[in-house]
């Protein structure tokens, strides 16, 4: 009867190893999660590393691909292994309503008045303003497209078009191509007839669309000439122009901008350090360094004003770029993402 007791010894050992593992996890350093790529490289240089010096402890950084399901799973499992996460506006709205984030202490950030209204939320602090818009290779297209109607015009601009796979953005752009004024897009899309109209307009272009999935793909498609125009994220466009000497252009009228925010996960271990970190990244003198690396708009008003003019012209927040752009309607997508994605998949399958 010695053997079973040996088995128990083994299991005790196992249990204590597990407990040790948990203890090790308890001493986890501040963990910041962002979108990866050259954006996170820039963040590491201007936020993570300097803040780690202020804190006197290492700051860990990870990257993710978004999705409220990921955050829900982490928070519901208890003691999440992330502290600060950069989220899109829908994830901010959904998670805040579901109690997945800590409330923001705006006094620590110098008050709400210092920031763009779109960047202020009970649960999140806006960090960047980014745009999805029409882009093309100005070296290859002799006449420049100027609107979504041009995007749909395959006679004037023969060739394939790149589109992000999914109903978000595709439906809005389709309505604009169909003659709906940018400011009225979400009013029209809010009705069943409006949704039908958008899908009908997409039908026209369907044979010419190449659907992309990840943000690097549209650049690749434009470079290789597989498409003549594509929807793309503005930061990536100016990024590749700089690093690879391309001459890609963004058409600002009819583009859609959105805000990405920092949130602190509910019951995160390093809650206080996390809030300090957010305050650090929201300071004008730190934030102003970002556009040098990547062309995203800054929500801190003082920082936005201090950006040099030659960088400012590429930012979604500059006055002329904002003129005919519209903000993403978060409420609309929070309500309708699921039903419209189901319909979109069915439409694609036909």
């Amino acid at each position, binding site marked *: 009867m010695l053997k079973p007791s040996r*088995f128990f010894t083994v299991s005790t050992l196992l249990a204590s190893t597990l407990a040790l593992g948990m203890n090790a996890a308890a001493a986890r350093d501040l963990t910041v999660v962002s979108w990866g790529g050259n954006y996170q490289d820039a963040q590491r240089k201007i936020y993570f590393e300097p803040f780690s010096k202020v804190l006197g402890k290492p700051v860990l950084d990870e990257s993710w691909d978004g999705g409220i399901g990921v955050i829900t799973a982490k928070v519901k499992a208890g003691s999440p292994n992330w502290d600060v996460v950069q989220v899109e506006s829908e994830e901010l709205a959904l998670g805040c*309503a*579901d109690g997945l984030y800590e409330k923001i202490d705006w006094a620590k950030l110098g008050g709400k008045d210092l920031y763009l209204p779109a960047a202020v939320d009970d649960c999140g602090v806006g960090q960047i303003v980014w745009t999805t818009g029409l882009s093309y290779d100005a070296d290859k297209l002799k006449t420049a497209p100027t609107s979504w109607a041009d995007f749909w015009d395959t006679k004037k601009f023969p060739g394939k078009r790149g589109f992000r796979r999914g109903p978000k953005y595709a439906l809005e752009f389709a309505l604009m191509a169909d003659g709906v004024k940018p400011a009225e897009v979400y009013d029209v899309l809010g009705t069943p007839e409006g949704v039908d109209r958008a899908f009908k307009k997409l039908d026209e272009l369907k044979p010419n669309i190449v*659907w992309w*999935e990840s943000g690097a793909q549209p650049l690749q498609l434009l470079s290789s000439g597989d498409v003549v125009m594509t929807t793309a994220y503005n930061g990536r466009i100016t990024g590749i122009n700089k690093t690879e000497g391309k001459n890609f252009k963004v058409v600002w009228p009819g583009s859609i901008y959105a805000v990405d925010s920092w949130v602190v996960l509910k019951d995160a271990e390093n809650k206080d350090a996390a809030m300090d970190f957010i305050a650090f990244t929201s300071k004008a003198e730190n934030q102003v360094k970002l556009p040098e690396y990547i062309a995203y708009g800054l929500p801190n008003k003082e920082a936005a004003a201090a950006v040099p003019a030659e960088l400012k012209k590429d930012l979604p927040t500059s006055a002329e770029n904002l003129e005919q752009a519209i903000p993403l309607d978060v409420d609309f997508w929070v309500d309708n993402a699921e039903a419209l994605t189901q*319909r979109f*998949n069915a439409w694609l399958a036909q």
Partner: protein
Amino acid sequence: MSIACGKRLAAFGLVAPLLLFLVLFFVWPLVTMMSNAVSDPGAGRALPQTAAALSNWDRSSPPTPEMQAALVDDLRTTQDDQLIGDLTRQLNSARSGFRTLMAKTVRTVREEQGAVDLVQVDQRWEDVSFWQAIAAATASPYTDRNLLAAIDMARSPTGEITALPASASANLAILQRTFVIAAGTTLACILIGFPYAMVAASVTGWKRQVMLAAVLLPLWTSLLVRTAAWFILLQDNGLINRLLQTLGLIDAPLALLFNRTGVIIAMTHVLLPFMVLPIFSVLIAIPTNLLPAAASLGAHPLRAFWRVLLPLSLRGVVSGSLLVFMAAIGYYITPALIGGPTDQMISSVIAFYATGTANWGMAGALGIVLLVATIALYVVYDRLSASGTERA
């Protein structure tokens, strides 16, 4: 007696880690996933009074003040935001619009004291369809809504099961496509993998090592990198098209990207090792003198292959096919990056529900449908292969 008992206990102790592993990482998640798909968790707990008030509502007449008052009370007493979040997610999945409606209502109800007229808060509370969704969610802790939706069906407000039009939901079409692509990949793997394994088994020494390394090497590279590489190779002015054009074999570039051909090429490359290795391991165990023996009895080489080598190596082909097919069913990244609009597989839909909207009920229901379909296919295959061996 005690020795036998001790031995049994010891044996149990030895397999205990395995059992624990199976239960913890296999049975438990599977059961959780399945129960998620058929249960309506939040509604009953978050809205007890509303559930009572709605139990004798006819589900078609306008909402009464009592129903409204019960809902207001429930939303005031339930302080657990995550519970309300679960509820809202589930309601919004049944009726779009609940997300903003609930957020607005909860905020107002908690700010104000006393009675609140919900229609004043939001016009949508006049709409019967929102109340129907609440009534359906609170009526029972179990639901078949997710399972029905996973196979393109839904219940009408009166409770009959109806099929959704093809323009509204395409899960079955996507599921069917998943099996077609997996079968195509398996076939391509057999066609390439079998001859490859035969050659690898027939050579010796460094040649065999090189051939096996060539198969294994891709396994050590990340799936994403291999897929991205195929993206570059297959595009219109990619390496393959340019080579074929320089050789004068084709005039215009072949369409290899964003269609089924590209997906099957890339998936075949990624999954080939799982076909080659099982076949190879069976082939090297077959005595090398069997084919010369067949030839000495007058068999044509093709006939010798067909009657001697193929039946003997069939076991490897079958296990390789199973491995490749099962792995192919779950593919997600490769079709997403290389496929066209009609090449997306069921995993991408599951991933959308699991991570995109945190609707684990729908993700679980689609998972169940996939599991059931796969088991059904496996049973058919098992019958076929069993009768095949009997005949042999």
